[in-house]
């Protein structure tokens, strides 16, 4: 702006010579709604180079205006206006803001961005107005439930990352997580150290025509995250956000109370009634408590030296989990600099982030222990040698103990001190150079770095039962560290030119990324036979060449072609490289003559896309060549010849033929907007076919040096429909009411498999409940059909002879539902009335089934309630009332229940103070809000929480309900 002033001053000097038949036009430009002046508005004489901009107060002076000249007023986000000059002295112009949909126009598509209305693939853009509100402590939760087909499963442990599935995931044993890219840097260490307050937008690429540009990493979708940057505006903006919430347990696992337990033992294990105590302990009450979460974030945005938009933010989050001794603490600093030089020919973007996370990890074995522990026992025992906690034991010699039954769950938590801290530095530096003499060409170089250093100590008290070695007390003290480094170098050229009515945009480039990982564990330093070990992972190196061509014909017909050639260090040289093409066409029907002026349909775009992507992210870093493992000298795995103990040299199994998984996706979509975007949304139909599926499969006798390993085994199809809708019910000066709704249907099917079946879903020693089999959804439940008596109780051990061969054996197992949901829903509504705002969000899942392993592994007599050790009796989930099983009967459909759920995730109410504390600054506001997170769960499933990832409920860290109070202060 300053440069323009200078130019104006020069011009003014020449004014005296140019007054003839010309005048100066002055005036003010304001916003039509708020009547606030708008600075920086372009005021230009149409068809000339004569122009100016409005100043801080919205005022402008435009000299040398001739009568009849058309003056154009334009500013981003507003509809332009043209005024004819008729020698007015001054004019006041009121600009109208463009509707929201068209304002937030830019979506990241990988190595570039595109206007949402010009996107040819199935992409979703989530920005601040769409984010989930309320107590959000980690980044993935911002988008949970907001996009059709994107399912986020957030664990309950403080600081936990979330599992994200886009369109159900395309793999079995290879990773199903989408590729996450932060400011151009693909990261593999999760998002728990990123402060959600620093995120500006998520661009989610769902179909292969969009993700093929990420080739071997794009099969499960891509999430592109853009962090907040500084601003070009002159004034500095401060923002302070803070909230505090109380975390409480929503539901306990339903087990017997002490008195109910006494009745059960008397009836079913009468030989052990002597083991009943006189107390009434609720073990789950002992280990869970209400914790506190507090989150504060302060940021500054401005334009340093008027050339460098800068943003600096600091954040602090502290969470006290609902499980005692579970604590999480995170400090983050984020700096972003986006200066531009040489008149915007060289744009620099530097993002630097640092975070320090501190965790006290609770011993989660306490949850299982609390379910099984005898409720008639006391919590404390003054005579106990185990730190005063009551345990079941006998001292058969001084200091020598035999222990029985489950450990005291409170002791498991309190006698263990497992503390770790992680330092994470990540960021990138990007240079974008627009060639001076050839402005259609840009070169971009992006270098990124993600360094994680973690270390911790794990101490178990000397007198803890869980620290015993053999029959005596020992305790344990170990320390560990880990280092990992992810380095990226990307370079690409972009050429964009308008040839008449045809816009061409071509990008080509190269990407190099390297992952290193090393970790150390000291072993138990109190145990002389224990060994320390440094585990160095081999490097994973990924390189790729890519290109993309976008053609826009007449603003109506869009064509995108992309191609990527990807190489990975994971596979042998013959199988190392893969080719991943993609193509899409889109027809902006609403730009056609017959719809252009329609008032009903303001946006209609039809998209058809196809692409091939790959998957190479399997746990094995290099499975293709022969290697040997030597056991450690103190590992306990050595063998004596004579008196000398030899380490064991073991050949590792390998698979030379292991190669990429490839997924081909077809996508047809429709983006629409009606009544000036009062109702808008998109509808997509897709089909994904994955070939050469990588799965962890059983390798038979004499086929390899292991009994399980990764192999390419089959083909898999994934079909679905997605619908996302936005409806602005009310939009006026006083109030706004909007609804956002999305629903997705997804069906996954294994189409070919190289052998009959693979068993998965292990729920104990060699007991499997799920299967991979042709024609079935992956990991469908595969169990016996339980037979019931006329009263509805199962007849123990009686299963249907489904193949009628007179014998009941594994051939009689059948498919009984699956863990995948058929439909997933998300719903959000936002309502503003004057200064009040109200928001709520819901999610639902229909058709997902759950195997209740909490009951399946405990609710029976022999080796359940009646412990293997005759000196112990264990509590059981109340499912035992329905079954009365005398022993473990795991592989039956009796334990599989409908886990469909409807969750009311969030309710927030806030009030906005306009000019708080008498601050007169333009954009100052103070909002106070209160709300509840995890309000309500509606489900037929009787377990703790039906939102189980993978379908097997084996006790989870419970998700807390949070009641919060917070404020957003901007000034």
């Amino acid at each position, binding site marked *: 702006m300053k440069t323009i002033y200078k130019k104006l001053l020069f011009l003014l000097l020449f004014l005296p010579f140019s007054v003839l038949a010309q005048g100066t036009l002055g005036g003010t430009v304001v916003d039509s709604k708020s009547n606030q002046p708008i600075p920086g508005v372009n005021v230009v004489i149409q068809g000339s180079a004569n122009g100016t901009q409005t100043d801080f107060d919205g005022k402008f002076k435009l000299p040398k205006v001739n009568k009849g000249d058309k003056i154009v007023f334009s500013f981003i986000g507003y509809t332009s206006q043209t005024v004819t000059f008729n020698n007015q002295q001054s004019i006041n112009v009121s600009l109208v803001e463009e509707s929201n949909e068209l304002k937030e126009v830019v979506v990241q598509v990988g190595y570039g961005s595109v206007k949402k209305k010009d996107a040819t693939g199935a992409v979703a853009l989530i920005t601040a107005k769409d984010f989930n509100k309320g107590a959000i402590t980690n980044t993935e939760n911002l988008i949970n439930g907001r996009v059709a087909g994107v399912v986020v499963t957030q664990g309950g442990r403080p600081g936990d990352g979330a599992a994200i599935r886009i369109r159900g995931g395309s793999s079995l044993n290879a990773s199903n997580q989408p590729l996450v890219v932060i400011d151009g840097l693909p990261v593999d260490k999760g998002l728990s150290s990123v402060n959600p307050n620093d995120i500006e937008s998520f661009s989610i690429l769902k179909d292969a025509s969009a993700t093929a540009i990420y080739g071997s990493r794009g099969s499960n979708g891509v999430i592109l995250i853009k962090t907040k940057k500084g601003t070009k505006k002159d004034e500095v903006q401060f923002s302070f956000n803070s909230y505090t919430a109380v975390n409480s347990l929503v539901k306990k696992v339903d087990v017997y109370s002490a008195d109910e337990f006494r009745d059960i033992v008397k009836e079913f294990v009468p030989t052990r009634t002597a083991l009943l105590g006189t107390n009434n302990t609720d073990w789950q009450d002992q280990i869970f408590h209400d914790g506190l979460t507090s989150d504060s974030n302060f940021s500054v945005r401005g334009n340093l030296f008027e050339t460098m938009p800068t943003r600096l933010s600091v954040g602090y989050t502290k969470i006290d989990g609902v499980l005692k001794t579970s604590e999480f603490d995170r400090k983050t600093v984020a700096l972003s600099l986006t200066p531009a030089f040489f008149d915007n020919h060289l744009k620099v973007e530097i993002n630097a982030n640092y975070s320090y996370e501190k965790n006290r990890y609770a011993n989660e074995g306490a949850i299982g222990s609390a379910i099984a522990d005898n409720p008639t026992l006391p919590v404390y025992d003054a005579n106990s040698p185990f730190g005063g906690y009551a345990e079941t034991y006998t001292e058969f010699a001084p200091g020598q103990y035999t222990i029985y039954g489950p450990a005291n769950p409170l002791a498991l938590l309190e006698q263990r001190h497992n503390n770790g801290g992680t330092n994470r530095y990540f960021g990138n530096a990007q240079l974008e150079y627009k060639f001076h003499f050839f402005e259609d060409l840009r070169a971009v170089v992006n270098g990124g770095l993600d360094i994680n250093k973690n270390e911790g100590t794990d101490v178990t008290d000397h007198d803890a039962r869980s620290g015993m070695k053999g029959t005596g007390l020992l305790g344990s003290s170990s320390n560990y560290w880990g280092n990992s480094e992810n380095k990226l170098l990307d370079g690409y050229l972009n050429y964009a030119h308008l040839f008449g009515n045809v816009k061409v945009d071509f990008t080509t480039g190269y990407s190099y990324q390297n992952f290193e990982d090393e970790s150390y564990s000291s072993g138990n330093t109190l145990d002389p036979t224990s060994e320390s070990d440094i585990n160095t992972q081999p490097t994973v*190196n990924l390189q790729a060449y890519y290109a993309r061509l976008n053609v826009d014909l007449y603003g109506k017909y869009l064509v995108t072609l992309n191609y990527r050639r990807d190489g990975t260090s994971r596979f042998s040289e013959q199988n190392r490289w893969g080719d991943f093409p993609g193509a899409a066409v889109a027809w902006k029907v609403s730009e056609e003559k017959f719809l252009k002026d329609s008032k009903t349909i303001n946006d209609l775009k039809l998209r058809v896309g196809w692409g091939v992507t790959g998957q190479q992210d399997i746990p094995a870093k290099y499975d293709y060549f022969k290697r040997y493992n030597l056991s450690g000298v103190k590992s306990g795995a050595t*063998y004596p010849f004579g008196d000398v103990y030899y380490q064991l040299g073991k050949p590792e199994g390998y698979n030379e033929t292991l190669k990429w998984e490839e997924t081909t996706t077809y996508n047809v979509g429709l983006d629409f907007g009606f009544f000036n975007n009062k109702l808008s949304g998109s509808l997509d139909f897709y089909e994904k076919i994955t070939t050469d599926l990588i799965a962890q499969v059983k390798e038979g006798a004499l086929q390899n040096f292991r009994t399980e390993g990764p192999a390419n085994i089959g083909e898999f199809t994934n079909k679905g429909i997605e619908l996302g809708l936005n409806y602005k019910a009310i939009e006026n000066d006083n109030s706004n009411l909007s609804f956002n709704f999305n629903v997705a249907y997804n069906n996954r099917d294994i189409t070919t498999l190289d052998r009959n079946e693979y068993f998965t879903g292990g729920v104990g020693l060699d007991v499997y409940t799920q299967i991979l089999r042709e024609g079935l959804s992956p990991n469908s439940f595969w169990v016996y059909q339980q037979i019931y008596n006329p009263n509805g109780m199962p007849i123990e051990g009686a299963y249907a002879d489904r193949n009628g061969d007179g014998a009941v054996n594994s051939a009689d197992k059948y498919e009984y539902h699956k863990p995948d949901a058929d439909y997933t829903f998300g719903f959000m509504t936002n309502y503003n009335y004057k200064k009040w705002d109200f928001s709520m969000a819901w999610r639902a899942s229909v058709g997902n089934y759950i195997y209740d392993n909490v009951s399946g592994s405990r609710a029976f007599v022999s080796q359940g309630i009646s412990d293997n050790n*005759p000196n112990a009796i264990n509590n059981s989930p109340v499912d035992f009332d329905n079954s009365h099983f005398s022993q473990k009967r795991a592989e039956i459909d009796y334990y599989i229940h409908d886990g469909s759920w409807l969750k009311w995730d969030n309710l927030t109410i806030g009030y906005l103070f306009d000019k708080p504390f008498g601050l007169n600054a333009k954009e100052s506001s103070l909002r106070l809000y209160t709300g509840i997170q995890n309000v309500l769960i509606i489900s037929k499933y009787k377990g703790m929480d039906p939102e189980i990832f993978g379908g097997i409920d084996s006790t989870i860290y419970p998700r807390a309900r949070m009641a919060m109070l917070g404020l957003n202060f901007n000034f």
Partner: protein
Amino acid sequence: MKKIKSIKIKFFVLIGLIAVFTSCTNDMNVFPKDDDVNSSEKFFADPNSYKEFMAKIYAGLAVTGQAGPSGAPDIQGIDEGFGQYVRGYWQLQELCTDEAMVAWGDPTLPELNVHTWTKDNRFVTAFYSRAFYQIGLANEFLRESTDDKLTSRGASAELKAEVKVFRAEVRFLRALSYYHAIDLFGKVAFATEEDKVGVKPVEKDRIFVFDYLVKELKAIDADLKAARTNEYGRVDKIGAKMVLAKLYLNSSVYTNVNRDTEALATINEIIASPYSIAKVPYSNLFMADNDRAAVQSEIIFPVRADGTRTQSWGVTTYFVHAPCGDWNGELGITGGWFGLVGRTEFANLFPDLSGLADKRGMFFLLPGTTTSIPVVTDFFKSGGLKVKKYSNKTSAGVPGSDANHPDTDFPMFRLADVYLMYAELAAKGVAGASPTKAVGYVNELRTRAVAGQITEVMLTPQFILDERARELYWEGHRRQDLIRFGKYAGTSYLWEWKGNVKSGATIEDKYKLFPIPQSEINTNPNLTQNPGY
């Protein structure tokens, strides 16, 4: 001009970028970086590697992975204890007989007690995987230790001579596992070092494998070390002859051809060797210090263990813990596992349970119980013969080095067995087997057991069968013996819970063989199932 200049510059920039980046594609050839893992070239560059590889194959009988007692398993998808070699073999040879019964209810385990197992039985599957894992490792060792390979790695003449002996020992270990496999399963998957890794193996029947094993065991005799001259734990010529003798003795069962004469010849060679019956009390053979010289003289092939250095949840960890109740202090271990007991018919082979009339009977009963077992599972406190044969205490009464994992070795083959094999042939009237000598051998064992002496007239096959139980019980022989004597299937001998009936019932012939695990048949179309399963 500007346009050409810009195109030229673009071109050079592109070339430069490509040059820099293509040189990086070599970065995708990665290598192991961890100090415990080596590419095979690096591994074999160290001359110690051959012995370490051989140690792995020996250890395959004793441990279950690269970390003891568990943590880095060789076999995935199976509990490490269940997948241990000796424990798995023992369960399949003992639980289906009168000698033992297990009280635990782990899925498919009780089936082994009562002859109701199916082709999905987890313990059958676990042992099959483990036995063939051993054979696979042996094949690989033989591929990597050929003379050509050693020469190409620059091995010295001493190393080559050493490796020649290793090769013979590894062939023995492979033969041992094939022998166990045909004894339990009949027909088996078959591959040698001539076959390639990754190829699905063919199936061979008992007769083919029997002939192959006889050839193998004879061929390695020349390279194996002379009797009692090898490091303790490694096999010698007599060990190979032991397996050969077992094959010949059971030949009627395996091949329908009687080879008792060949058996006798081999047995005589073993008896003529420097091995001798240990002059220690019987119980010392199963104590924590059973690797002392005094005991070593009798042990032809041990599976060794050590409380801190050779740990597993099988072998003697299992043998000491599993039959133990709350008398663990006596045996020098942490708490018992309340699992294994003996059955009534086995107990009745002894004069009484006090051990006074035959010190080999190390038994007792819990107060108020008898040897009778009332129900099929969870019966440990309510019945069954309690056995205290294996212990983690030394002969001096000192507990072993670790209360969780005994130092006690497992005597897989011992001379006492050979004496009884001789006596068996004499009792069957095989030409060249002298009944006088046989009675002498039996009495030598009975002297050690402080049991009464026998006379020639008592030397009958039934007596030998019973004496084998008295001398060799819980050492993994019973099922093989019962089948050989024709007392396993059918009604000729009934014992408690045989055939899933408390008083004992007949079992079909199909149960003389274990089923080929269904999961193995699923992975290899060359394999077929045993009849009846």
